């Protein structure tokens, strides 16, 4: 189920990005945003608290 977002909340999101979107470009992203947010939400489903990231910090940088 795609996520929903109000026009006002989406305006806040866009403003935070600082991207110079035209009205048409904003409308394009607004249309696809719920589908994209649903993908993000799927990844953010609960995991064990101790689940480590795939990427670790290599102390000996090269």
């Amino acid at each position, binding site marked *: 189920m795609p996520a929903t977002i109000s026009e006002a909340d989406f305006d806040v999101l866009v403003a935070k990005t600082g991207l110079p979107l035209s009205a048409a470009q904003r409308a394009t992203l607004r249309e696809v945003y719920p*589908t994209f947010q649903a993908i993000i939400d799927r990844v*953010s489903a609960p995991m064990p608290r101790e689940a480590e990231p795939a*990427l670790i910090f290599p102390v000996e940088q090269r």
Partner: protein
Amino acid sequence: MDPFLTIAEAAKLIAAHKLSPVELTQACLARIRKYDDKLHSFLLLTEERALADARAAEARVMAGAAKGPLDGIPIAHKDIYNTAGIRTTGHSKLLEHNVPSADSVVVQKWDAAGTVMLGKLATHEFAMGGPSFDLPWPPARNPWNTEHFTAGSSSGTGAAVAAGFILGGTGSDTGGSIRGPAALCGIAGVKPTYGLSSRRGVLPLSFTLDHTGPMAWTVEDCALLLQAMAGYDREDPASADRLVPDFTADLSKGAKGLRIGVVRHFYETDHPVSPGVKAGIDAALDVYNQLGAEIRDVTLSPMIEYHAAGTVIITAEAYAVHEPWLKTRFNDYGELFRDRIALGAFISAAEYVQTIRRRRILCLELKAAMADLDILVSASQPGEAPRIDSVPKWGNLEKPSLTMPFNLTGFPAMSVCTGFGAGGLPVHMQLIAKPFAEPTLFRAGHAYESATQWRATRPHLG
């Protein structure tokens, strides 16, 4: 001269002094001049450089000092590989006049192996999206039918190899950008294990998903090309510090005894493929069975889980790479790349971290599933090449990618042609091996190609 020599065939003829690298290069250049106005596979043809490379190779061969099987072999590079003194654009207006001062590591290595560089190849803008019709150069077209898509992003390499313009070329693969065009153009393409081949000097898209790799007509040719690409690069933070095996060593071992797992739900239910692709995979499994492989089904998490994690990572990391330009030169990008990447601005730090935690869980799942297997089989693309004017803008979000699971996990994977579908265009399968088991991957692919006749059919360009 046969314009459709493989690298292995040409190398034998060159070594036997029966084929001149200069004449081979001239034949390739003539073919490009004759047909590439239909395919648009080259962004830049470097004829003088190519002929100089070819003459140098020929001199070495005649002096008994050939460098190996790639000496005198015509190749070209995807235009995200930096080439010293030669324009490298990413197929984008933003780098339209960019001339790097140094070669990428892979370009250096192929030069050192004696390859003959014919030029720079079309790509989707900065190696993502496409086809785009609002860039400084048109998109590459499929040699099997120029009204159809090549897939991408290594679109020019797929088209140029299939058309017989070059014998091999470089690709890059962040979500399927080698395996996709290899599949739709009917060639072979390998995304090696993450870290096996240096990314240094290649325009980045997504640091933790980017892979460099070769594309060629056959699996054997890919093995020869990867041999000259692979190896530790201390200055690439992701590079794996380990010895490079002989990728051709197991080619003649056949498939007997290989343990093959079929991830059937990926291509039958998670993202159902066309009847032609499915029939090609079924027939390939019959071939492997006849060759003595052991085959069984494997179940992983639904492919959407892998796809979702890959999509968040690629979008977030690509946004981070491009953010300065997105904020200052937004309209200099093509619409497709720009709009896809702009979504990265909406991903929070917590969401990115959750995604790389999910990534580890999925990596461990795949590792466990392959514990007693040598090879996995799936599909690379959902069907034959679609018409180039019918590719949906948001196809990357609509259905899960068949290739992304192996960028996310870093396992080596390869597209192999399995014949032709109902539309007369190539179909394929995807083979996957354990990390750093490329010799096994090449063994499985070569066994299939040797047992079938698909490598004997080339596209007709007119």
